[in-house]
């Protein structure tokens, strides 16, 4: 990674202390679990608290933490074989839509993937999280092929969330055409590939192994 030129160029840090809360709940549960394993039994009240009530609470905290942290580009890029070339392209590519947005700071560097792929509003969040769980399932089962392709039409509400009210977006003649608007809103046509460049370069969609072989 490039060295920052000074403190002005370092994004502000949002301190994350959520892990402390999780540890405060999980560690006592583990201690009592070990005691139960060694002794075989403990007072009913202590066992109930440590084995029945606190663990689900700890997992709810863990789920919340994971939901929040899984929005980050770092998390997306951690699925090394499939996603790391796409994250690399955000930094290196100069022609594709995601890289242009990323390098110009039009999307947050912390959660750029999530901003564009989550749709708009709360249902966008829900569909993104559902899709994320399905991605995990595809990763576990190996149910995916290269080059990676979207399984559904890209939800352009993500684009419209930022661009709809922008004056330069409204000024474009093609955007004002009612037929074009209908095609875009119905999902028959996408912003990318026809008028705008593809979201990600082809080389980034073929996996880390293919990327490494290309750049050997």
């Amino acid at each position, binding site marked *: 990674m490039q060295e920052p030129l000074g403190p002005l160029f370092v994004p502000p840090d949002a301190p994350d202390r959520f892990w402390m809360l999780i540890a405060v709940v999980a560690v006592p549960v583990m201690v009592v679990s070990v005691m*139960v394993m060694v002794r075989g039994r403990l007072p009913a009240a202590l066992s109930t608290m440590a084995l029945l009530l606190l663990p689900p609470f700890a*997992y709810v905290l863990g789920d919340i*933490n994971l939901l929040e942290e899984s929005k980050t580009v770092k*998390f997306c890029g951690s699925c090394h074989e499939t996603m790391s070339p796409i994250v690399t392209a955000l930094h290196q590519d100069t022609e594709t839509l995601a890289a242009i947005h990323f390098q110009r700071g039009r999307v947050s560097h912390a959660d750029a993937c999530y901003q564009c792929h989550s749709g708009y509003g709360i249902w966008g969040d829900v569909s993104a999280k559902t899709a994320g769980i399905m991605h995990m399932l595809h990763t576990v089962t190996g149910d995916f092929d290269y080059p990676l392709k979207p399984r559904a039409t890209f939800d352009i509400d993500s684009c419209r969330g930022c661009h709809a009210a922008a004056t330069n977006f409204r000024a474009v003649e093609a955007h004002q055409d009612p037929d074009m608007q209908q095609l875009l809103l119905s999902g028959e046509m996408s912003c990318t590939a026809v008028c705008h460049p593809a979201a990600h370069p082809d080389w980034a969609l073929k996996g880390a192994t293919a990327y490494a072989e290309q750049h050997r």
Partner: protein
Amino acid sequence: MMARVAALLVFVSMLILLHVTFAMNGDSAILFFFVGHPLLVVGILLAVIALARRLARERAAGQQPSSGQR
């Protein structure tokens, strides 16, 4: 024995929770979702059964003297 197995499952599920908390990445998230959650559910179910059996045993043991006095 059942209480020990329940405690072991809960212990491992907590380890997985701590792992995903500190090593937030795709692999640990997969482990958390597809191994941690099922382990926790099974662990809690076993703990409930163990606790219920123990309470039933203690109740039965507590009632024996009183029924013997009758």
